[in-house]
């Protein structure tokens, strides 16, 4: 089953790089924020898969804090978009 975890990490990394293309090239600011939001969610899945490969359970707490910080950043940047 570790082979499946490695496979999922490789596929998620490829999709993260494809999303990064949109976040660099996107025409408006909202395109970039949406693709960075998707990258946040994928990185949470990658962190949990790495925690199962290394068998270290404290990575789950790291993933929880990462989800909280990503949501706060998205809301603050959307307020900046609205007021600009």
């Amino acid at each position: 089953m570790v082979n499946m975890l490695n496979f999922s990490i490789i596929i998620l990394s490829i999709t993260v790089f494809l999303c990064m293309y949109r976040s660099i090239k996107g025409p408006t600011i909202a395109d970039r924020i949406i693709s960075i939001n998707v990258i946040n969610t994928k990185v949470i899945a990658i962190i949990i898969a790495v925690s199962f490969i290394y068998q270290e359970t404290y990575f789950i707490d790291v993933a929880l804090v990462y989800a909280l910080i990503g949501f706060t950043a998205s809301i603050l940047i959307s307020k900046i978009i609205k007021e600009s």
Partner: protein
Amino acid sequence: MMKIFLFTVFLISGLIFFALGTIGILKFPEIYSRAHSSAKCDTLGTILTLSSFCIYSGFNLVTLKIIIIIIFIMITSPTATHIITRGNYEKEEGSNDADF
């Protein structure tokens, strides 16, 4: 054996949804359709992938933490996309009356 089968099915379907959401973000023409693709596929892909990790882990405290992360992402991922898209719409239209 049943555990391995369920883990593989949930993980592969979650990865397929992630890949379809990424293709939508790359290929759709404007901001609102990109937001639609990212919100739906990202939320469902995360739920399926983290559920497969719950099945992998078994029944312990790690599973409870992953379920907390799943509930948090189910609430916040569509909310964040909605707020970003609404901010962009109000910037384009120039109206400032709706509060969020």
